[in-house]
């Protein structure tokens, strides 16, 4: 995986050096920051042997909440807190159904994906959140510093979770729950709490991702985030996290986001039509997992 990324970078350095212009790299970082933030949470959920396909709908609701709070005249820190809290609440809804009632996460989140999306559409009637206050876009910092803030926020979230996953007991409990729930229980981990916790974390991070996206535009679209779940799960899987839980790292996820995020812009710089982006994305996912399967077999 790391090799694939290095290969892509070397190839681009020769064929399309313009790709590495600071402006382009910065745009790339800004546009992928929300995906990275959501992918952190998805990594936790998959490590705990669960999945969440409702994050696209959570993302849409997060954006609308951010817009409405800002229009209500709240200061930006309060808007940010409220958006993250709203995301955490939606994550808690999934977590309660999965950990509390013991229902399979793939079906629960399929249901909440449809339910949340349609509730939002019903509530907003598809109307975008417009006329946002001046202090909302780019946190009121202006475009330049605002972009830096978006990148910093995503990297800060990444660093915090990467550190906690390795060095805090709760982080190691996530791995334990994903590899052997029964054993984890015996050594004092409470798998249900861990599962609830990872869903809440993913919800909160999805809320943050929605905020980091919403502030980049003049209006908040109410139909945002369709297909986000596939993009994020793909990044986590390409990053080497096992779908069966217990194995994987956040650094891998970071590389996965970088690789998949670079494909589209790289195609443009190589002069190929951007329409083939999705096909190439799919190919990268399949190659990554096939390579892993071959590696396992050789061992």
């Amino acid at each position, binding site marked *: 995986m790391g090799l694939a990324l290095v290969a892509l970078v070397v190839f681009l350095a020769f064929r399309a050096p313009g790709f590495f212009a600071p402006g382009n790299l910065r745009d790339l970082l800004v546009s992928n920051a929300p995906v990275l933030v959501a992918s952190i949470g998805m990594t936790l959920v998959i490590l705990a042997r669960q999945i969440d396909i409702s994050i696209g709908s959570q993302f849409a609701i997060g954006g609308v909440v951010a817009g409405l709070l800002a229009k209500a005249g709240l200061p930006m820190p309060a808007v940010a807190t409220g958006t993250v809290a709203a995301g955490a609440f939606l994550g808690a809804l999934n977590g309660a159904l999965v950990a509390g009632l013991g229902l*399979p996460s793939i079906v629960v989140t399929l249901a909440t994906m449809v339910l949340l999306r349609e509730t939002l559409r019903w509530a907003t009637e598809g109307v975008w959140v417009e006329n946002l206050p001046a202090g909302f876009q780019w946190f009121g910092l202006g475009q330049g510093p605002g972009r830096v803030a978006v990148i910093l926020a995503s990297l800060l979230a990444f660093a915090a979770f990467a550190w906690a996953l390795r060095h805090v007991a709760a982080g190691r409990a996530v791995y334990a729950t994903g590899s052997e729930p029964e054993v984890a229980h015996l050594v004092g981990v409470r798998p249900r709490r861990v599962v609830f916790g990872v869903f809440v974390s993913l919800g909160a991070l999805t809320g943050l991702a929605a905020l980091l996206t919403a502030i980049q535009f003049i209006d908040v679209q109410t139909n945002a985030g369709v297909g986000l779940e596939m993009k994020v799960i793909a990044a986590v899987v390409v990053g080497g996290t096992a779908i069966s839980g217990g194995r994987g790292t956040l650094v891998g996820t970071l590389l996965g986001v970088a690789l998949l995020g670079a494909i589209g812009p790289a195609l443009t710089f190589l002069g190929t039509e951007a329409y083939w982006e999705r096909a190439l994305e799919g190919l990268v996912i399949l190659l990554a*997992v096939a390579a892993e399967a071959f590696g396992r077999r050789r061992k």
Partner: protein
Amino acid sequence: MRVADHRFRFLSHEALLGAFVLAEVAYFGVRGVNFFTVGNVFEVARASVEIGLLALGLTAVILTGGIDLSVGSLLGLSAVLMGAAERSLGLPVSLACLAGVTVGVLGGALNALLVARFDIPPLIVTLGTFSLFRGLAEGWTGGVRNYTNFPESFLFLGQGRLPGGPPPQLVLFLVAALFFWLLLHHTAVGRGLRAIGFSPQGARHAGIPVRRRLALVYLLSGLMSGLAAVVYAARLGQAKADAGSGFELFAITAVVLGGTSIFGGRGTVHGTLLGLAAVAVLQNGLRLADLPAELAGLFTGVLLIAALALGRLVSRRSHE
């Protein structure tokens, strides 16, 4: 004794779902305008055939404990290449349909190869082909080309009426449903698929060719995507890259609502048909009763969770 309990549970799930569908029909019969007409029944059926075909294939896949997220994307790719064969290559429409179905089978073969031969988890394989198939359709059409102006004889398949009023594609769907019902409920292959869903290891020890059976269900799922693509193009009179977007989720919803366990091993074709009917009647009824269309998604989500929670409660009690 446990077997008897399980059988009782299937019955109650499907009986409950059947009762729910009847309640829906009764409610919309009173509230809706023109709900209780033969014409409307056929229109509901016409609109459900594509999702229904996908749901049949998915019932077999999920029965083995697998999943196929790529069916909607494969529908799109098959429809686009079918359109290209007919409009650009100028093939006769029957050959173009055959080409579309073949694309479906080939797509299914790719899933089958990766799942059954390379032992990669189906969720990941079909997540990859979900992007790959849709991406190929987008790349081929440049994101904009839309194949239209299909011959009348072809459009009849999707838009016409047989004597007495039923839509022609309904016949295709009933044949497919009968095929899956016989396969899953009345053959050794079907029992094998169930055994794989309960325990792949155990099935292997019992002498079931697990790899070949797994390959079969993904091939069949691909075949259903190809057939659904032909019906889709004939019903809408067009084929473009976004055909069938999100259909996989509707189809999975119908299957799971119909009582098939997402972990495999349990499920029926008639359950899937009831699940399909529950969602289709809801959508149609809300429209005819002039209620917000968004309620359909909302109720479907609640229904799905309620069905799961109920199943969970019943299984807990039977274990005690």
